């Protein structure tokens, strides 16, 4: 499996991009030449140079430092979100698939209701009620995405529940809980990981999208979406200030998407064997 990942160019490119972003997030304090929030209006829109490798923004803050710290926001918010979503999705999805027709129908209907609301509306409502803050963005994303995760995992679980080895497990005396833990979850894990890895990209885009709309993070936070928003005012004079955070969002989400899709290509033929 690991060998197959290394032999797949798409997976390798994805992994390299993810590694770059992760390294930037982890090593931001060491790599950043300046404090990302230190304002120095006398040096606003400074040209790239030795002191400021990518120049400064409209408030004289070091662009490179802000981009490096921005990776912390994106990764630091999307990964815990995905972790919570995975737990919710696995628990509810498997329960829905294993319970009777009526309970399953109720789960599906509740999921459909949540899916029918655009995530932006849910985020606006949650942040409107709970106020600004990183954890509130995470809550908003969880509320808008849990139903997608649950539906998807339920569909994997339903397909797996129809297989003979689940029936054989029942005949072998397994309880429903044992069937879920010993047979169902390990067998849907590969498909589930593919879904999660592409889900990271959506979560990163949502975090950036919400901060671009000033939903959630406090003003001046070094988050890529918020940086894009602030740079809009200087679109014509300093377009590079939009290109840098935009490229970072693109690289991160492309990395996770490329890796996720390559993983699917690797896993699916294996499952079919």
């Amino acid at each position, binding site marked *: 499996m690991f060998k197959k990942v290394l032999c797949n160019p798409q997976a390798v490119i994805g992994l390299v991009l993810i590694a770059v972003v992760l390294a930037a997030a982890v090593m931001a304090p060491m790599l950043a030449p300046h404090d990302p929030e230190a304002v120095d209006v006398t040096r606003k829109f400074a040209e790239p140079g030795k002191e400021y490798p990518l120049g400064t923004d409209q408030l004289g803050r070091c662009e490179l430092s802000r981009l490096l710290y921005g990776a912390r926001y994106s990764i630091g918010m999307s990964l815990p979100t995905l972790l919570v979503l995975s737990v919710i999705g696995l628990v509810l999805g498997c329960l829905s698939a294993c319970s009777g027709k009526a309970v399953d129908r109720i789960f599906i209907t509740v999921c459909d209701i949540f899916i029918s609301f655009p995530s932006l509306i849910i985020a606006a409502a949650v942040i409107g009620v709970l106020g600004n803050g990183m954890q509130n963005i995470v809550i908003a994303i969880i509320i808008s995405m849990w139903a997608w995760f649950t539906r998807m995992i339920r569909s994997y679980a339903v397909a797996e529940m129809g297989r003979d080895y689940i029936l054989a497990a029942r005949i072998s*005396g*397994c*309880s429903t809980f044992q069937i879920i833990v010993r047979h169902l979850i390990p067998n849907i894990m590969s498909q589930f990981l593919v879904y999660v890895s592409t889900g990271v990209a959506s979560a990163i885009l949502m975090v950036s999208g919400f901060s671009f709309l000033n939903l959630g993070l406090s003003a001046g936070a070094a988050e890529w979406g918020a940086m894009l928003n602030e740079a809009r005012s200087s679109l014509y004079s300093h377009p590079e200030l939009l290109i840098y955070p935009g490229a970072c969002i693109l690289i991160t989400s492309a990395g996770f998407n490329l890796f996720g899709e390559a993983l699917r290509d690797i896993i699916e033929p294996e499952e079919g064997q």
Partner: protein
Amino acid sequence: MLEAINLYKSYPAAGQKGKGTNAVNGVDLVLEDRMTYALVGESGSGKSTLSKMLTGLLPPTSGDVLLDGKSIFSLGRKESRLRFTQMQMVLQDSKSALDPRFTVYDSIAEPIRNLLNVPKQRERQMVAELMNKMELPDSLMNRRPNELSGGQQKRVCIARAISVSPQLVIFDEAMSGLDVIVRKSILELLKRLQEESGFTYLFITHDIDVALYIADHILVMKEGKLVERVCYTGSIECFKHPYSRMLLDSLLPEYLGQNA
């Protein structure tokens, strides 16, 4: 002893409320201990539905199944699981009946862990004995199903089914899809095991030659009903129903010559 009383199972027809198809249509059946039964019939005659109801995996529309005089549909949750110490089932497709992530050892040990309260060491010993009985080499113990041949997969499934020493083992089309040499060796092995351990077998099959080879009671099923029950003693003359004769006509002439 397993007894089926007036079993009915109907499936609702799509889009037609109140109407349905009777997959099993009033079946009465008694399976005596230490006997070998075969339930034959064409595809769609209700054999598999009947076998699932006999094991309690599918509730009947009406009727009951008694295991040693006790209804298997009125058992509590724990008792309901424990009924599998008395009856086991071997499914048709051995490859998909084995969890692809389980080793041979884990697959065979699963019913022992769930249904018998034995220490780990005894479990290991039981699995080794079962593999030996099923003529599976010890080297396969840590292999996964995709590393086994079709015959080996079938033997693992049988080992798993007999691991809890059930009274009754139901083979749901379990001999189909095997090549004739493997099938014969497995049937021989099953005969030997029955002599040693006194299992009752019920073979659900559409291959009447399997039924003639192994069973001492043959039940013929057509459109959800048992149309003939024959105590088979080696001569096909005892089959009287036209449908049974039709099934026998499908056999190769030399086979009929041997048995006539």
